[in-house]
């Protein structure tokens, strides 16, 4: 849906066969891009912080992949065309957008929600044959997607607050004065299960400070923080599948979360999606590939 095709854009010149499909995942924290060929093979990925003007930073992310691959000629990379026009794509390239900023890129050939794109990115890579649940934890949101091999059945997104997302972990790391990359190692040294109660990131920070004052070990607090993330995500919706697939940058950097999720369910199969941070961008590219077909049918899957 919402796949508006504008043939005036150079990337959708009807006379040129599309060779490269780009997906851009405009998250509120990071822009991620991924490119695939007509066979659905991943060609490249890139990510950068979400900065503004958005279109300029997306433009940069689509360039600099080498002259063979870049959607925007490297020679054009440095700046946007003057007068704020949207960038022109090289013939044979199409771009599809997902994520929070998806409506704000005028030059793309289509857009889809991050729910559908994450599902497509995961299913394309894993080709699961059973029902499963995707848990995606990003910088500022968390998603739970109940999926079958053919479609998204239902989904939930975190409500209102950063609790259960990467921002929460970042804030507590800051409170504890521990570098982010040290968190998983320290958590492994915990010797006690502590609980943080609050929904609220600020109140959780206060809970942590109070526990520190009471002499609790930092390791136990970090472990409690991870358990809090798990709790926040699990209260979003009831999970009823045996297979959990994890995606998103937070999971990539904090793999300790996976067994914490698994232990809430007894025996479950947990899978970290390949290219976990790029599932949304990849899914957007797959969506583009599915949309395009010589015979009018999806040419993928």
């Amino acid at each position, binding site marked *: *849906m*919402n796949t508006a095709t504008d043939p005036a854009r150079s990337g959708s010149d009807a006379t040129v066969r599309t060779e490269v499909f780009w997906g851009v995942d405009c998250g*509120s924290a990071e822009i991620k891009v991924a490119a695939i060929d007509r066979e659905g093979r991943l060609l490249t990925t890139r990510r950068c912080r979400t900065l503004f003007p958005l279109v300029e930073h997306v433009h940069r992310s689509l360039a600099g992949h080498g002259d063979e691959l870049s959607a925007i000629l490297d020679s054009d990379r440095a700046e946007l065309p003057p007068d704020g026009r949207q960038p022109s794509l090289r013939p044979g390239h199409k771009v599809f957008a997902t994520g929070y900023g998806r409506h704000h890129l005028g030059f793309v050939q289509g857009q889809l*929600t991050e*729910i*559908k794109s994450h599902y497509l990115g995961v299913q394309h890579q894993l080709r699961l044959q059973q029902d499963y649940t995707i848990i995606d934890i990003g910088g500022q949101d968390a998603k739970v997607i109940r999926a079958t091999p053919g479609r*998204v059945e239902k*989904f939930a997104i975190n409500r209102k607050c950063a609790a259960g997302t990467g921002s929460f972990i970042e804030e507590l790391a800051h409170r504890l004065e521990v570098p982010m990359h040290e968190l998983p190692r320290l958590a492994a040294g915990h010797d006690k299960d502590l609980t943080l109660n609050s929904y609220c990131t600020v109140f959780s920070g206060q809970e942590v400070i109070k526990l520190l004052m009471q002499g609790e070990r930092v390791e136990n607090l970090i472990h409690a923080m991870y358990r809090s993330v798990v709790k926040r995500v699990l209260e979003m919706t009831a999970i009823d599948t045996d297979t959990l697939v994890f995606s998103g940058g937070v999971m990539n950097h904090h793999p300790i979360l996976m067994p914490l999720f698994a232990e809430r369910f007894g025996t479950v199969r947990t899978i970290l999606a390949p290219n976990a941070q790029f599932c949304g961008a990849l899914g957007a590219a797959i969506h583009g590939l599915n949309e395009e077909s010589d015979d009018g049918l999806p040419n993928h899957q």
Partner: protein
Amino acid sequence: MNPSTVDVGTAAVAAADAKQVMRDYFADLGAAAKDPARKVAWCTSVGPAEILRAMGFEVYFPENHGALLGATRVSAETIPVANAQGYSPEICSYLTSDIGACLKGVTPLSKAYGLDGVPRPDVLVYCTNQCKDVMHWFAWYARRWNVPLLGIHPPNHLPEVLPEHIADVASQFRRLIAQLEAITGTPLDPEALRLAVARSREATDLWESVLDTARTRPAPLSFFDGTILMGPIVVLRGTQIATDYYRTLLAELEAKVAAGHAAVPGERLRIYWEGMPVWGRLRQLSDLFAGNRATVVASTYCNSWIFSDFDPAQPLESMARAYLKIFINRDDAYKENYIERLAGEFGIDGVVYHAARTCPNNSNSAYNLPQRLAAKGIPGIVIDGDLCDLRCFSDGQSTTLIEAFLETL
């Protein structure tokens, strides 16, 4: 008249007429407030307006003002003023918008209808069939302006409306009438009451028929149109003006149906909206659904002013029954059956539940109702938001939730 010969562009005219009807209504209210010979009563939106009309009061509805404050986004300036006076950000944002506006001395009625301010009341009449916030709200004005405060307190959240409930409310109405007679100095004319109830019944039946035109595929009007077109049924119940207005509107919509006119061209999905409108985001939400070729064809909100029980032969008893039976005053099983029935009748593909932060009374997603209806094959999505307080609403998140939901249907 052969409907096919009617210009199908006329519903736009009806929308314009709604504006004219509202302009006349406010102009008259403004005049009444300045005229010592006329009396103004404030009434809650599903309160006993017919009694007030029959007793010669001009009737003003503060909830309508709340909606206007929300739609014009003046609320953003006025809610914090009420919050700072101890009216919590967690309570009805109509209340906080309106009290804040009074404290600040602003009203969108000035710009929209040329009024100096809200019309000062001679009496405040609330009914807690919808919530208790209205009682606290009107009490503030009673203290501020030293105006009599009269309340109807019906039994709430009923599985069934029983004769004893009706007897209770009818007797409260009788006491209210006596209290109002003391204010006007004139006894209620039973014929005038019968007439007001008859007019309300006629208008509400027409309003129901208007909403029912959306059963057609494609629907000729959407919930978002409904939120504008409903003005007269809220504020002019009991008058001939409302009846005349809805008769014209219905004819226009029937012509549109005959001509196959679609509110959303290329209608692909049909949605039920559960809960309050997000007044400050009507246009954006309307565009969002239309952009996805989805029409919101039915809603709890617009249906809340259908009162099929009004009966001029038994004015007080039938008013008691009608005002007790409203959706908001019923138990969860009733609500579940109601939405299920409408989903069938309107060919609904999915339900969008608006969980309004400051109105739990009009939010029905917190007690597992979406899950129960989903188990019956009526999928739904819950969006967090509010009627007036946009601090509780995220454009990005709601857009993603709604679009992703429509993708799954």
